[in-house]
Structures are given as C-alpha cells and as structure tokens.
C-alpha cells in the first residue's frame, strides 16, 4: 500500500484533533475568565501597587515571578501562564506518544512505514502535525489575549512561549516514544519528565539562590522570556532549537531501530508473577498499579515542595497587611494561615486527583476499544463485576494516593519549620477526593456513551467544573451556575469544616448516574 505524505499528515491530524480542540477551548476559557478576574480585582490600578508583594517565594513558586500587572494580558500570563503551559506541554507530550508509540504498538504504523516514502517521512509528517498543533495553541492564545490587551508584542511573545512549550512537550514525547515501550509506559515517563520540569521551575522560583534552575526547565524558559516584562526574545530560541534537535534525534533513533520495538525496553521474557491474577478484583488493581505509582511520584513531589513553602508564605502574610487585603480581593484570604494554605493546596490537588481518577477509570474504555475485554467477559467474569472491580481499584487507589499526598504535604510543612498536626493535611486530602464518587459515576456513564472520546470529554468537563468553582465566586457568576460544579461545594479543609451535606448529595448523584452507566454497560455491544 502506498500512503502519501499528505495522507499521513491528515491521518495524524484526525487522531489529535479532538483533544486539540478541547485544549484550545480550555485556553480560551481560562484566559477570558482570568481577564474578567483582573478587572474585578480593580484592574491595573488595583494590582500595580502590590506587585512587589506578589514576589513572595511561595506565591512565586505557585504562579511564577510576578512583574508589572498593568494589563489584563500581563495578569493572565502571571496568574495562569504556568498552568496553561503545563496543559499545553502535557497535551503535546501525550499526543506525541499516542501518534508514534501508540501507532507502533497497535501496528498501524507498519502501513505508514512501509509506504512508498518509508518510515522517515511518516515520522517527519507526524512531527509537522505536532508542530502545527503547537502553533495552533499559540495562535488561539495570541488572538484571545489581543481582545483585551492592546500590547501585540507582549501577547505575541507569550503566545510564542505557549507554542514553544507545546513543541518542547511534543519533543519529549517523541524521544521517549523511541526509547520506552509500550505506549502506557512511554506516556507515564513523559508525564514524569514534564512534571519534574514543572517542579524544578517551582523550586527555582521559591528562592533567589535557586534561580539558575530556571534554565533547566521548559517552564523556566517561559519565565525567562519575560513576555509581559522585559521582552527577552533570545529565549525564543530555547523554544525552537532544543525541540528541533530532540525531534531530529528522535527521527534518527527511529531510523536505527526495529519498528515496533523501543530502544530501551524491558525484557520480553519474565517469570510469571501470578499475584493479583486470581480474580477481576485483583487484576483491576494490578492493571492500574503502574499508573498509580506514576501519579503518586508526581503528587508526592508536588506536595513536598508546596508544603515546604508554608512557613515562608505564612510569615510573609503576617508582616504584610496590604498583601492580606490583596489576597482577600482575589478570594485567597484563607491562605494567610498554615491551615488555610494547606486547605488551598488540597483544593488545588483536587484537580490533579480528579484527572488521576479519570485516567484510572478510562482504562475500561480503552480495554474495550482494543478488544481486550472479549475473552475475559466471554468466558469468565460478568460485565458488572468487571466494572465494579475497576471502580473499587480506582477508589481505593485514589484514596491511597491522596493520603500519601497528604503525608507529603505534612512532611513539607514540618520541614519548613511550621508545626502542624498530621491529620490536618490528611483530612484535607480526604476532603479533596470527596467529589470522587460523583466523578466516578459520571465517568462510568461517559465510558458507555462515548468510549473512544471518554477521557477527552471527561477531562474537559472536570476542567470546566473546576474553573467554575475556582473563579466563579470571584467573578460573581450566578449562583445557579456555580451550583453545577461539584468542586464548588468543597471547603478548604482543615481551615474550614467539610460540607458534609453537599458531599452526601454529590455522592448520591454519582451513585444514580453511575447506576445508569452500569445499566448501559450491561447492555452495550462490546468491542465496537
């Protein structure tokens, strides 16, 4: 079969299009919502006087170094820039592993590689598509920012940074896909690399003496670019040259290895380990174990670092009443105490934990789409038992990771010199996962409704619900809109008491929706 470069190009675009559209939409929503937050906080006049206060190490670690917040764009770049960049990097990295390692795993790459132009052209087409995807992110960012910020150069540099971050993420995904297999492992390694780079940037911003670390992280490069500050355009090269070199290296590695195999791969032979293979319950846990470990590593590291910032932040707040007033305007007044800060951290963790829940549950859908459920469900376990096993493994795994995360926050807090009872962050993390029953219920329903796009659609839903809860109150959005987000009911435990009533109601809704999902799954056609 002869596949032209053009057909490879369109085929790859078809694969990445749904998630690209979702991420682009999230970019637009986040930017527009934060622009609104800027104006509701008093705009340039209200923020300029306290910019110096935002240079507190803890705040810097969370959001990056604050500069002049004199335009809506500058505020958006500071407040959400790092997280938009993180989303773009993760998207690009996961798409890169999907269209390269994933395609090799399911052998669909064989057709592309044996086409007239060969595997080199096929990979080059994929690289071009990922590059175009990154460019699209930048264009969306630029145009959205330009609507409210009359500073084209700054908007352009920030958008270029987002594009560059996406290119870097794609480059990481590309090279990891050449050396690690299968796709699931490649994706995990990629996420760990991106996560570590984010943590390095946090450490770099938490102390002046560690500022040099910024050069080691793609997120640090975004800061060094100074899009709304000093316009240090030389850093643009960092977003072009390294990803290009890494992409070339990936291309070269691919040329020199066997198709279908990664450069470094675990041995193809292994002694049988029969533990957890005796039932669907055990297997559900075993299947999700490596994903849980990868998320644990990331969340524990994040918890340790963020916990370690507690003392600096609280001490800073005590000595700066103006800063406390600013936080109050931004809706973060509660973080001026250690308990409040931990509560805010736990609330932030809710988003990550929710994505982890989705990643663990959506394995059900991918197993179904890949046809892996045919044999187990044909001559063994019932469908409901299989789904229940996945839910139980996901729920207990989530609780375990959350407690581990709470423990790491406590260790960080104690290491920072602030004394705190162990159960505070543990309780905070348990509260953070209290939305899990609802998320699980909705996820089970979505898996049966749109199994091929389950993760993308659910992740978009969770992200929008989180943004509603985070920014809706600041922007005085209608109460009815806020009530639609399960995260809106979460309190900043341990600083506040949990909202038990809401937790019970949300869990019951999750149960009902999940029962609907169960019903559909029990009657659905599998494998199609």
């Amino acid at each position, binding site marked *: 079969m002869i596949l032209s470069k053009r057909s490879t190009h369109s085929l790859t675009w078809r694969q990445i299009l749904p998630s690209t559209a979702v991420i682009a939409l999230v970019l637009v929503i986040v930017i527009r919502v934060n622009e609104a937050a800027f104006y509701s906080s008093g705009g340039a006049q209200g923020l300029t006087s306290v910019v110096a206060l935002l240079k507190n190490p803890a705040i810097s670690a969370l959001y990056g170094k604050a500069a002049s917040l004199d335009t809506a764009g500058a505020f958006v770049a500071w407040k959400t820039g790092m997280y938009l960049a993180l989303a773009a990097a993760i998207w690009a990295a996961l798409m890169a592993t999907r269209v390269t390692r994933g395609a090799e795993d399911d052998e669909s790459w064989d057709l592309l590689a044996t086409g007239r132009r060969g595997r080199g052209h096929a990979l080059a087409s994929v690289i071009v598509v990922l590059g175009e995807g990154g460019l699209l992110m930048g264009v969306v960012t630029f145009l959205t920012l330009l609507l409210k910020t009359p500073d084209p150069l700054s908007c352009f540099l920030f958008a270029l940074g987002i594009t560059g971050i996406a290119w870097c993420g794609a480059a990481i995904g590309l090279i990891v896909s050449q050396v690690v297999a299968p796709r699931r492992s490649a994706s995990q390694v990629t996420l760990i690399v991106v996560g570590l780079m984010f943590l390095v940037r946090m450490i770099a911003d938490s102390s002046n003496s560690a500022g040099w670390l910024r050069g080691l992280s793609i997120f640090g490069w975004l800061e060094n670019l100074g899009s709304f500050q000093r316009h240090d355009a030389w850093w643009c090269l960092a977003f072009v040259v390294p990803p290009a070199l890494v992409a070339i290296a990936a291309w070269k590695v691919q040329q020199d290895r066997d198709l279908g195999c990664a450069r470094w791969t675990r041995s*193809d032979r292994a002694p049988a380990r029969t533990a957890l293979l005796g039932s669907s319950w055990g297997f559900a846990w075993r299947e999700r174990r490596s994903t849980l470990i990868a998320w644990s590593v990331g969340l524990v590291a994040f918890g340790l670092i963020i916990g370690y910032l507690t003392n600096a932040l609280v001490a800073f707040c005590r000595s700066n009443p103006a800063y406390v007033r600013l936080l109050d305007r931004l809706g973060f007044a509660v973080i001026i105490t250690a308990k409040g800060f931990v509560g805010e951290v736990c609330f932030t963790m809710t988003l990550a934990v929710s994505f982890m829940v989705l990643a663990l549950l959506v394995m059900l859908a991918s197993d179904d789409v890949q046809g892996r459920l045919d044999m187990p469900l044909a001559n063994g376990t019932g469908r409901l038992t299989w789904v229940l096993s996945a839910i139980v493994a996901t729920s207990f795994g989530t609780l375990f990771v959350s407690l581990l995360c709470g423990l790491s926050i406590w260790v960080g807090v104690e290491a920072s010199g602030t004394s705190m009872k162990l159960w505070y962050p543990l309780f905070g993390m348990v509260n953070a996962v209290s939305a899990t029953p609802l998320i699980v219920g909705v996820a089970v329903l979505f898996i049966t409704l749109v199994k091929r796009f389950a993760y993308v659609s659910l992740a978009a839903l969770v992200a929008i619900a989180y943004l509603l809860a985070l920014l809706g109150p600041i922007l005085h959005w209608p109460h009815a809109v806020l009530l639609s987000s399960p995260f809106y009911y979460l309190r900043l435990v341990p600083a506040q008491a949990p909202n038990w009533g809401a937790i019970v109601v949300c869990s019951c809704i999750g149960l009902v929706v999940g029962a609907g999902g169960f019903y559909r799954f029990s009657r*659905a056609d599998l494998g199609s």
Partner: protein
Amino acid sequence: MSLHAIEAKELTKAFGHVRAVDSLNLTVDAGEVVGFLGSNGAGKSTTLRLMLGLLQPTSGEATILGHPAGSPPARQHVAYVPGDVALWPQLTGREAIGLLGSLHGSMDGDYRDQLFEQFELDPEKRIRAYSKGNRQKVAIIAAFATRADVLLLDEPTSGLDPLMERVFRDCVVEAQARGQAILLSSHMLTEVEHLCARVAMIRLGHLVTIADVQDLRSHVGLEFEIVGSVGDLSGVAGVSDFTFTGDGAHLQLIGPPGPLLAVLATQHVTSLRTREASLEEIFLSYYDQAAPASTP
C-alpha cells in the same frame, strides 16, 4: 426435549439499517463439531459474539446449555477463541492464561502444560513480544485448558503454521471425544472438512444452509469422468452438466447412481472415474445459488 449445547433462535442483530445477522436458527449438540462458513462480512463473528453475550441481539435469542447467552451460568460453560487476539501486552503468556483461567473458574493445569509443549509456546514471553500466531496459541490454550462444555472458535487457526494447525485439529478431536460442543468459524475449508460432520453457511447475515457434509455432497453431486465411446447421457435421471470431452464425457450426478450405471453398462466405457465435491466446491455452489436471492 433434548437440551442443545448451543442454540440460536431467530437470532437477529442490526447495526443501524444493516442486518448483520438475520433470523438465524442454529443448534450444536454436545460432542459435535459444527463448521461455520461464510465470506468476509457474512456475519460469522457477529453470530459468535451474540452467542457469547458480547453483543446484544436486536431480536431472537441465543442460549448455551439452555442458559441465555452472556448470563453467568452460560459463561461458566463457554470458552472463546477470537480471530484477532487482544490481551494486555505487559502480561506474559502464562500470566494471561492464568488470568483467563481464574476468571473462568476452571483450568486443567496438566492439560495446559501439555498444550504449552504441543503448541511449542514459550509461556514466559510477554504478550507484546508474541507474533500473531503465538498470540493465537495463547487464546487456544486458554480456551481448551478450561475444558469448557462449549467452545466458540472464531478463525482460531489464523496465523498458525501447518504443523500447529494439525496440533489444533488434534485438540478439537480430543475435545469432541470428551463431549464438548464446538462451533468452528473458519475460512479454512480443509480444516472444517477434516473436523466437522456438519456445517452451517451464512451469507449476508442469512443462514444459507446447515446440514451434514455428506448431505451437502449429495446435494452438489458426484462428478463423473468417462473415457470411451458414449452417447448423450443428459437425459438420464440425475445427470446434469453433461459435456463431451476428447476421449469421452464429463457429467455431474445428483441422486442415486443406478439409472446412470444401467445406461453406462450398455455403452463402450473403457474407464470411469468419480470424484466427490470438495467442501470448497460445495461452499461455492451454495454461495452461487444464494447470491441472486439474497442480494438486495
């Protein structure tokens, strides 16, 4: 009324406006191997997946030993080999078979180990490292080692080499001798011919026929090649497709050979050769017959 191991009653499955399986009736009894033939897209795999409960019928029903397909008691009695085996790539062959055995609830460990040897499968390799044929072996071993009462096999030997096909045939024969019921969907007509006393043919979702192979042969007829000086035999009872050849004649006979042999006895025949139709010829014959009626 005797209980069939597998029974489909007016089984129908529609995907949108397309009826992939249409009012299909089929039975397989214990100790019987039934071949299930059809072209690509005829509805074989869909029928098997309906019988496994993986697909939900639009109407009609399928039962396994009297239990509705897909119900817990039905699953206890069934093992399945798909044509395209998909399992978790990180598991080894032994782990995958162990998992499937545990989920099924029964696994003859000795027989499993024997099958590892017979199929020359390295069970310590990971699924992702297996070739298609070896992945197929994993599914075959997992299914046969359960000693399930009913085996639903969908193109089980695709990817296997001829030596392994022979091992597979031995397994089927042994399973049949143990009283297991087998529905074997296959494109490999020689394999079906070797193993199945009865075959079902499906075309565009419709069951074209289900009958003993011998009955099908008698329906298609016996091919005669006659050397010698013979007259026009086209009028003899049961004779069709009569043609003169350079040294004699060629004809097809459907029905008892008595009338033809009586006529030939009066003619100058130097040699007579007969040949039974192969399953492939039977298959093509039925497909050709069914084509005009079934084509929309």
